[in-house]
């Protein structure tokens, strides 16, 4: 009995830490925007942490994910480091993409994150292709495609679901239904039910509370294991909520979403607070230990931000590098 309990404790701790890390990352990213230190805009993942963490904790490093414009959470959950992430957000040379991608294209190849995507639904083919590749090469890897409720309106999804089902591909379509796409409520843009759409292709579909990291993780463990055995594809709808505006600049948003609704989710359904309470009640961690974890992670994030602010931009000569694989500088090639 004793070793099993220990494993669980470690898993719980890891899930808690990863959710806190995402929240800390986003709080800092938002601050960078508000203090005009970050180029461009970014989309906050805060509120949705249990989705990325619950799923990614069921994956191995070699498993693949594809992410979205709201992608920092997936990136952290799949194992990325703060330093390289903040550098990327600030367009610095030490960023994961050498500053070329920024927030909306952050990718972390070493942990199987094939990248965020600024085209809504743009990664549905890519995730399915990764699953196709895994099956073809016999790697036993699983691919998870994260996307929002709004992305379910893209026709691409229906094309690739059909092929994934026909060919039993190890892909899990994970729809984060946060109730909105930009400034529009999901019920105004989605006819019928999302789970029924997947079921129409004969794909097993689940709906889960995306604020409950244990529920998400339990389901993900099962589906990932089955996908590895060739029983995929699967669809999961995760009901969740984004705390910030559509992007960091979307501040006056009462016209499409009430402050009461936001407060209700934040106060009663916060995935981190609720999981922390559960850990305390179960005797896994004390209140003091929870605070200590939070403080340590906040300090880590702050140190990474300070590092990234001082880090160097890429040298100008990099502007035409990486256009073509195998070509050092595209301008002297094309």
């Amino acid at each position: 009995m004793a070793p099993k309990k220990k494993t669980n404790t470690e898993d719980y701790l890891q899930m808690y830490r990863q959710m806190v890390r995402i929240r800390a990352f986003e709080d800092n990213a938002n601050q960078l925007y508000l203090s005009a230190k970050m180029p461009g805009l970014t989309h906050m993942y805060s509120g949705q942490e249990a989705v990325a963490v619950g799923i990614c904790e069921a994956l191995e490093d070699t498993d693949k994910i594809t992410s979205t414009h709201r992608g920092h959470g997936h990136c952290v959950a799949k194992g990325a480091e703060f330093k390289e992430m903040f550098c990327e957000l600030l367009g610095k040379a030490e960023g994961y993409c050498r500053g070329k991608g920024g927030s909306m294209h952050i990718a972390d190849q070493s942990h199987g994150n094939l990248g965020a995507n600024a085209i809504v639904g743009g990664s549905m083919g890519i995730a399915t292709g990764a699953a196709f590749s895994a099956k073809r090469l016999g790697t036993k890897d699983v691919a998870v495609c994260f996307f929002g409720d709004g992305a379910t309106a893209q026709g691409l999804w229906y094309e690739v679901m059909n092929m994934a089902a026909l060919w039993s591909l190890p892909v899990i379509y994970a729809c984060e239904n946060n109730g909105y796409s930009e400034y529009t409520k999901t019920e105004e843009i989605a006819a019928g039910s999302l789970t029924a759409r997947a079921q129409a292709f004969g794909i097993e579909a689940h709906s889960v509370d995306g604020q409950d990291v244990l529920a998400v993780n339990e389901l993900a463990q099962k589906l990932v294991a089955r996908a590895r055995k060739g029983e995929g594809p699967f669809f999961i709808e995760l009901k969740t909520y984004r705390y910030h505006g559509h992007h960091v600049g979307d501040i006056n948003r009462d016209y499409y979403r009430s402050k009461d609704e936001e407060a209700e989710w934040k106060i009663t359904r916060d995935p981190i607070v609720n999981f922390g309470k559960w850990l305390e009640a179960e005797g896994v961690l004390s209140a003091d230990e929870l605070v200590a974890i939070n403080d340590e992670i906040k300090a880590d994030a702050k140190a990474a931000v300070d590092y990234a602010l001082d880090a160097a931009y890429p040298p100008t000569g990099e502007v035409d590098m990486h256009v073509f694989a195998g070509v050092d500088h595209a301008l002297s090639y094309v």
Partner: protein
Amino acid sequence: MSREITLSKAVNEAIAEEMRRDPAIFLIGEDVAEAGTPFKVLSGLVEEFGPDRIIDTPISEPGFMGIAVGAAMTGSRPIVDLMFGDFLFLVMDQLCNQAAKTHYMSGGKLQVPLVLRTNLGATRRSAAQHSQSLHALVAHIPGLKVALPSSAYEAKGLLKTAIRDDNPVVIFEDKLMYNDKAPVPEEEYLIPFGEAAVLREGHEITLVATSSMVQVALKAADLLDRDGISAEVIDPRTIVPLDEETILSSVRKTSRAIVIDEGHQNFGITGEIASRISEKAFYHLDAPVVRMGAMDVPVPFSPALEDLTVPTPETVAENARLSVRGELFHAA
């Protein structure tokens, strides 16, 4: 009577005026109604025209583009709002295989009177999928007209003309200019397609510049003026159709030309215009015609790199000096 309004307001007025005039017009796209688009260009229109004419869609670009094409063939006059020019790649089949060819393939029997409003322009730190200037792609397809307004004045006049046109028209607004103001008449006006504007007269070099690059060319002309070089600045305003005559007669006078456009330089608008000048004014030229487009790389996110990819007043002026001095790379 003229007043100064933003490009955003100019677009809004053009749509409202035309919708009041013609009940066949509707507008369709993502977050166009209550939200009035992320750039807030369409604010207030749904209040006046209602949700049956200002229509919010799901994030289904090929779907609503196709619906617009079919509606245009059957008595409606749709204005399609495509939030970013980069999303053109999603609607290309409906636009280029369907809308562009229908009139021709039907032997002139069917018409597709629709407007696709979208945008272009980098240096907004939006990275490679939200910064492209893709007008050359659609200009390449016979059957599509392409307008490139360079100020609030052009945005209003060209959009009204586009809405009244019986063909598919793609109009690209510079997303960095939505809040820029320019004098716009109170009274109604239209800007005909295929009429370039000579924005500044000069006699030593012609700068042909489109859309976002018009301001760059005007600033370059100021810099050149300080060096005693007299530059003429021409804005074609539409590239399909292209007002060749205004460009050619300017070049016949100045004997030199630089073409500046924010699309990628290779296989782009600058090459097309430069080659028409070379073909049709060759014997008047004293220097090779220079193309200046966006660097042929995907738009990088990092500000340190992104700013290198677009022509600036300084780089345009430098090329103009070289041209006038006979020191251009190819000049023997």
